[in-house]
Structure formats: structure tokens, C-alpha cells
């Protein structure tokens, strides 16, 4: 009889602990959500350095991105059709022939700030960072590591980065006929201003 009571009590305790721990885990998720910074109007622009009469450059001002200041996770989603060129034909070719935006409408990045501890999100300043993660573009996913910076100013967080993308890495081929107009490497600039996600 006694032994049964003890077992029962132990079980109850375990249950309580589990409930408590689950609650704690849930709380951890919840607190994560509170540390999420977000933008839907981030800017990504690129240009091709080839010596061409017509500049090959485009801007996308509808970049969605989220940053978790606690875990350092950093995600981007970019609609290919959101890139706008000054030439309509260039934009059509970019979508039709190069990025094939109907087949691959979105480009994403899912990564992490590798040196998160160096950033103090509560103190104004510019912090140099390195972001490691997976970049998906044109249906190809590549591990990338890009340098950038986080700027904290009056509680607002902004991210900036400049890096190169090799077209070949993402199976984007440039026909020889226009090879002198489009360089193999494209300079990409990322400029995002975040707001806390409500």
C-alpha cells in the first residue's frame, strides 16, 4: 500500500516537472518570437560590372526579412519579379531567360550570424558581422558566408551587406552572344531596416 503511494507520488512529481519543463520550452519559443525583427520593404540591388553601353542593374524594394536577435537567425525571401530594371526588355529577359522566375519565383537565404555575442542590440553602434547560411536562387542552394554589418541606432536595427554572386554557381548561363554585356560575377547590395515584429 505504502509503496503504491510512493510510486504514485513520484509519478505526480514527474508529471509536474514535465509540465513545468514543457511550459518553459514553450516560453523559450515565445520569447524567441518577441526578439524577432522584421521588414517587408528591405532593399536588394545588384549590378553587373561588365563594360556595357547599357548598365545592367536592378532594385528590389520589397524584400522580406526577419532577424532573431537572440538566436542570431537571419532569413530573407526575395521575389525575383520584384527586381525592376530601367529597361523593360532587360527585365523581361532577366525573368524569362536568366532567373526563370516562373519556375523559381523566390530566392531565399536562411542563415545565422556567426558572431552574435559581439553585437549589443541595446547599444548604438555599427557591428561588423559574418552571416553563414544557405542561399537558394534559381533552384540551386549553396552554402555561403558573407560579411556585413548591423547598425543599432536608437533601438532600431539595420543590416547592410555587399557581396558577389557567381552566376555559374546558380546554373545561370549567359549566352556567348551577350557575354560581353553581362559579367560572370554580380555585385549584390543588401540594405534592410528592421522593426520589431508585433
Amino acid at each position: 500500500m505504502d509503496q503504491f503511494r510512493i510510486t504514485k507520488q513520484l509519478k505526480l512529481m514527474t508529471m509536474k516537472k514535465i509540465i513545468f519543463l514543457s511550459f518553459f520550452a514553450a516560453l523559450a519559443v515565445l520569447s524567441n518570437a518577441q526578439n524577432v525583427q522584421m521588414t517587408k520593404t528591405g532593399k536588394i540591388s545588384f549590378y553587373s560590372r561588365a563594360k556595357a553601353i547599357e548598365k545592367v542593374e536592378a532594385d528590389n524594394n520589397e524584400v522580406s526579412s526577419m532577424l532573431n536577435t537572440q538566436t542570431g537567425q537571419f532569413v530573407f525571401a526575395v521575389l525575383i519579379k520584384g527586381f525592376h530594371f530601367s529597361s523593360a526588355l532587360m527585365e523581361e529577359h532577366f525573368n524569362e531567360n536568366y532567373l526563370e522566375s516562373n519556375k523559381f519565383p523566390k530566392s531565399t537565404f536562411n542563415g545565422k550570424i556567426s558572431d552574435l555575442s559581439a553585437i549589443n542590440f541595446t547599444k548604438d553602434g555599427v557591428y561588423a558581422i559574418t552571416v553563414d547560411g544557405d542561399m537558394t536562387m534559381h533552384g540551386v542552394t549553396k552554402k555561403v558566408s558573407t560579411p556585413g554589418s548591423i547598425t543599432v541606432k536608437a533601438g532600431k536595427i539595420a543590416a547592410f551587406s555587399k557581396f558577389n554572386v557567381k552566376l555559374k554557381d546558380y546554373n545561370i548561363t549567359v549566352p556567348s552572344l551577350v557575354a560581353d554585356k553581362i559579367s560572370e560575377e554580380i555585385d549584390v547590395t543588401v540594405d534592410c531596416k528592421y522593426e520589431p515584429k508585433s
Partner: protein
Amino acid sequence: MKNLLLILVAFCFSISKVFAQDDLMKMLEDETKKDKKKEFATATFKTSRLINGHSIENAAAGVLDFKISHRFGMVNKGGYEMFGLDQATMRIGLDYGISNRLMVGVGRSTFQKQYDAFGKFKILRQSHGGKGSSPLSISAVSTVMLKTLKWEDPTRKNYYTSRLSFANQLIFARKFNEGFSLQLMPSFIHNNLVQGSTDPNDIFALGVGGRIKLTKRLSFNAEYYHVLPISVVEGEGYMIPGTKNSLALGFDIETGGHVFQLHFTNSTGMTERNFITETTGDFFKGDIHFGFNVSRVFTIKEKRKKK
């Protein structure tokens, strides 16, 4: 028991950890899904002409499209005429996109020394996602053609308006997928003056055209106009005697700022009146012209970038 507890604890934490990791990407996806915008179908065809006639496409706003169209003689004329290459008719044209919906153009053809001018308006654009999306694109084209050949009989009273013809077309198009687009073109042509007393002044036709994309930069196109047996005036025919329906088969080749269209057609002229109502060649008897259109676009007014 203790072991079990440990496992459970580890499990709880790992779940929360995994959940948090994927969560951010998923959260972002959910957020972007919320404000999904309407997307218009683009590049249903490579250029504003299918082969002889109009496609659903327009030159974009601020873009000037310089077009040179060329038809050689008939290939069944034999070696003496170098299978048609010794003769040629041409049209030089300029199209301009006033807005993303409205395009205007002018042209001059060597065939019958003809000028033409047209306006083309996108009434509806095929789209998906968002509110009020449409499965079809619809455009309207209206063309005026002016022959300037010397009067056949200068002794009689000739009216200037006798030189004029008009063509009105509706274009219904759908891009079914990346590789396949189809369009229907109900057309109405009015000639102010016709040769015979029983020749119709008003001619109705239904065109059908499409493309199959072979590679990213190469497509196969076909275009056919069937004159409909509708006569407005009793006793008149519905077709000009001796004419045939227009058929054209060809390829679009795209190279940067140019589109080359190479094709075979039984039509000689390159405006609606000419190919819909005045085609005399019989495609299946070898009355086929080899021809090409070259399109070169120039961006005159740069699109204002969204800031």
C-alpha cells in the same frame, strides 16, 4: 525513471529549438503570403508581331521598336529566280509604347507603296493571384492603311479616300504555360474601294495563332487567318476572288535587344488588309515566301524606378 525524465527534458528542449529554427523561415513565408499581389502574365509572345499579324504583346512604355520586315518571292519560282530570293517586298516600321497598355505604330511597305498607322490597346491582362485575376489577355488593334500607287485610270474621277482601308482586330490570348501560348484574332477589314463590283468591301476573318517554345530563346510560331463566309451586301462574295487564306509558320530567335523572326508564308503583304484579304498564293502548291522580321528595341524613356 530518471533516465526517462532526462530524455523527456531533452526532447522538450530539442522540440523548442527545432521549432524556433524553422519558425523564422515559416513565419516569414506566412507573412509574405498574406500580401500576395496580382501577377500579370508576361512574355506571352516574344514580340508584338506573331508573324504577319499582331500578337498580344505591346512595346513597353517608353520603348521604341524598330521593325524591318521582309518577304522574298515565292520559292516555287525555280532556279532562275533563285527560288524567290531575287524579289523582295519590305515594310519598315516604328512602334512606340506610350504606356504599358497603349502602343502606336507607323509603317511603310514597298508592296502597293502603302503607308499604315495603328493603335493597339490592352483591354485586359492575364493575371493570377490577388483579386480580379483574368485567365485571358484581350487587346484591340485598329489600323489605317493608305495605298499610294498611281491611279490605274487617271482619266476618271478618283477620290483620295479610295486609297484607304481599315482593319479592326480583337486579340484574345492566353499563356497556358512557359512553353505554350495561344491567341484568337477576330478581324474585320474594310476596303473603301475594291476592284470588282461584286467584290466585298467588308471582310470578316478569324485568326488563330500560337507558339511553342523550343528553348529559352527560340520558339516555333504558327498563324492562320480564315476568311469567314459573311457577306454584308447581298450578291457580293465574302472573299476577294482568287484569294486564299493566309498561313504562316516560323521561328522567333531572340538575341539580347533583337528578335529575329524567320518564316514561311503564302502572303506577300505585311499589313492586315494585305495578308488577310489579298493573299493569292496557295501554301500547299508551293506559293511560299521565305521572309523575316527583325525587331530592335530602344529604350527612349527610362522607367522611373520605384524608390
